[in-house]
């Protein structure tokens, strides 16, 4: 019975709390308030296999109802050395990026690679996350970050 009590208490501890941006650890990157139930942070990260611009989206549902998360709605661009903007597309060979609902008071993260035909060194990226929270009307919310930028 002692073990049962520990597990029950632990399950309560891993609930996501609205506005906390913490689950097992602090959400990495820039925090974005989308005006709904979803707390979102975005960070540009590196990967051993993928070589493009990789963005980690970490999100938590702070409400007691399910919320649709639409990471396929994210638009992205980068600015090259000449100061020109180049639009990027998400790498999704298996067509996995569909809107999905996250359970109440739970959090999760996903990493998505954005690239175009140019295979230049990934340095910076800007993403529009205004459509990620399916519970609020879409509006442009651009977040720009650089490789290795934690905050």
């Amino acid at each position: 019975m002692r073990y049962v009590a520990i597990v029950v208490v632990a399950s309560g501890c891993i609930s996501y709390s609205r506005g906390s941006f913490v689950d097992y650890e602090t959400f990495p990157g820039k925090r974005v308030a989308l005006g709904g139930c979803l707390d979102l942070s975005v960070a540009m990260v590196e990967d051993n296999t993928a070589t493009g611009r990789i963005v980690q989206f970490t999100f938590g549902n702070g409400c007691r109802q399910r919320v649709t998360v639409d990471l396929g709605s994210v638009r992205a661009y980068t600015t090259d050395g000449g100061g020109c903007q180049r639009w990027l597309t998400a790498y999704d060979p298996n067509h996995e990026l569909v809107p999905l609902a996250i359970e109440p008071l739970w959090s999760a993260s996903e990493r998505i690679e954005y690239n175009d035909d140019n295979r230049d060194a990934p340095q910076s990226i800007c993403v529009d996350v205004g459509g990620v929270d399916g519970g609020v009307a879409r509006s442009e919310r651009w977040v720009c970050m650089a490789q290795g930028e934690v905050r």
Partner: protein
Amino acid sequence: MKWLVLAALLVSARPADARGCHERSHVVGYEHCTMFGLWSRDVDQPRLVLDVGYLHHRFTGEPFSLMSAARETMPATDLRTGASVPGVHRLLYSPGGLLYIGAEFGFGWLSRPPHVGADLSTSYGVFHALVGAHVNPIWRVSLGAELAAGGRVESMSECTSKPCPDSSELTQTSREIEARALVDLWMTPQLSLGVGYGRSLIADNDTTWMIYLGIHVRPMDGMR
């Protein structure tokens, strides 16, 4: 209880790692062991569940005879028996909706063997086919009811002296049909802790308690 702790450790990091698949990248499109959206019950994955846990069965055994005792002459209360199965396994599949089917098996021993006045070595096995239904009406709690039909095997051997040149052994089999109520607490979308209580439909004073850890391929089994 060691099974519960072990299973919790296996699923605490990444579900696929527990299967021995080592992910080289967690970027969408590069993943081999996992996939995008395993945090949502809407993701397109099979509704498969593996439960691992502990089962305790209390029942009245059949009359039996060993060297030192003939139980036919004893009152039925002396045949009250408890069986412990520390590693009961349940494999469940839901085609969709509320219903699921599955099977469970486990092996243990008689934790409370019949009293015969001599030391008994015992073993116990159980196999059930399962059919049930479950719903998720409240936040992280789901409720279920199921029917378990199958049988049990009990084996007892008695030694009157050591070493044991003259052992007496017997094996009994019994049919079982049991109705159960289950409650699951979801700790993550793919990990649940459950308890169950069952009562036999064909035998008196025959009850089962279970506690188990559930590992779910599809988050929350895609339940509504």
